[in-house]
């Protein structure tokens, strides 16, 4: 069991030079442009049919990125001791569970997974209608542990800022790290991710859409041209 899954998840870690972050349209993981859909991939559902939207990660690529991140996290922390994965709802939680699954398969360790809703800590609450609040769940006491915050997309950094504040109200971890599936650049705060699935250079107005099977029934990351007046996420 262990071996087979290890084989399946073989990968080559890549170091991403930061200077490349802003280079547009370059796929740093595969070296290609928009990947081809392969037979067996779930059919993208409505919304991706737009001719302007482009798929930047397909199901396999997402799986590989997750696997790589899981390894990175374990490597960086010399194992799973005192590690807690805290996903930021909605898709961050699903990703945290995926990371935990990989860690379990790789090292046979059960890393506790929680959810950290940051809605009430956001700095933009008053800029839009009342946002629905997600669930916060602490799987263990976090005092003294290493909390890895997990989110789907890192953009302005404001969500992470909110998450750090929210975390501070829950306890005092020894260290906090950040893992994101997509880093799309355009930071507005001095925040960077420790573990990144993929860097995707984007324009400000664009929208990065992460779809995960647990929530959306499909695994896919795409870039959609956003409403220029709204800004992307």
């Amino acid at each position, binding site marked *: 069991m262990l071996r087979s899954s290890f084989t399946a998840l073989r990968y080559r870690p890549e170091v991403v030079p930061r200077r490349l972050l802003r280079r547009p349209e370059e796929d740093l993981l595969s070296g290609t442009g928009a990947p081809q859909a392969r037979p067996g991939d779930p059919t993208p559902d409505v919304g991706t049919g737009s001719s302007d939207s482009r798929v930047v990660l397909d199901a396999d690529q997402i799986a590989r990125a997750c696997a790589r991140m899981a390894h990175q996290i374990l490597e960086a922390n010399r194992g799973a001791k005192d590690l807690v994965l805290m996903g930021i709802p909605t898709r961050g939680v699903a990703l945290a569970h995926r990371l935990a699954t990989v860690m379990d398969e790789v090292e046979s360790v059960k890393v506790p997974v929680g959810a950290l809703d940051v*809605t*009430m800590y956001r700095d933009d609450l008053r800029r839009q*209608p*009342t946002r*629905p609040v997600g669930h916060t769940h602490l799987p263990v006491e976090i005092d003294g542990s290493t909390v890895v915050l997990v989110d789907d997309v890192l953009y302005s950094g404001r969500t992470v800022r909110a998450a750090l504040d929210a975390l*501070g*109200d829950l306890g005092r971890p020894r260290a906090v790290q950040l893992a994101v599936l997509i880093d799309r650049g355009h930071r507005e705060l001095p925040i960077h991710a420790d573990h990144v699935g993929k860097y995707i250079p984007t324009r400000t107005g664009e929208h990065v859409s992460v779809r995960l099977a647990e929530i959306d029934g499909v695994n896919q990351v795409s870039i959609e041209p956003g409403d220029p007046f709204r800004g992307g996420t």
Partner: protein
Amino acid sequence: MRHLLSAADLDRTQITEIFDLAEEMSLVQGRPVKKLPALRGRTVVNLFFEDSTRTRSSFEIAGKWLSADVINISAKGSSVSKGESLRDTVLTVAAMGVDALVIRHHASGAPWQASHWIDAHVLNAGDGTHEHPTQALLDGFTIRRHLRRSAPDLVDFEGKTVAIVGDITHSRVARSNVLLLSTLGAQVTLVAPPTLLPPGVDSWPVLACTDLDEVLPHADIVMMLRVQRERMSGGYFPTPREYTIGYGLTRPRLEAMKSGAAICHPGPMNRGLEISADAADAANSLILDQVAAGVSVRMSVLYELLGGAE
């Protein structure tokens, strides 16, 4: 949602959202830091024309735990006798730059009127003999929690019967609960002596009945209402004793309740009158849960009203 004036302002989805958020809020109460920053910089004024320590402090804590600045203003005593109109009082308070006014008034409709005069959000914290929507929300929330103990996936109250027993005519809790619980799909049955059933009750989405013993074995929830002291001398029923025998939740009636059924009371209770000590303290009494739910539900409502853009 701009104001919360009546339980009728809420549809089933909104009520469910408020309940779900209240569940989250109740978890906050177990944390080392009980405060959330969502309403930082917002000002909530509790404008109480009628005393109510319990409701006022519940709103106060709810506001503070959401980081709002909460100010209590007691405007007790008839403004008519003070020469200042309700409109003057409300405008004066609103002019101080408040984001929400939580209004409790001894006269029906006062929060409704206030909402037409000012821009701030208005929350009805009980108006005369009209409505008390946050009480109904916390009652509904408590009932949902109770029902979910045996049915964790329960989303609404379809197929459930709630009996509301007592002075319906003068009860704002009853009015709001009738609206809220029936919106959630419950069958509400009102039980009272004919003198305490309101005029026009036939048009309410309820069954009305004068015989508690007929209703009791079918009710999943039995909600007992407080008998106000002034009603006892108002000739609505001959004596407290006769009321207790007819409409009190006595020990024998406790036995007659459906198995798994629970007891609610919005408080404060007249032990020995509408509810016996046995019933109040029974294992299936939700009365303390109701009190505990007050802050969570009001946090949830304040967030719904004030958490977003104007």
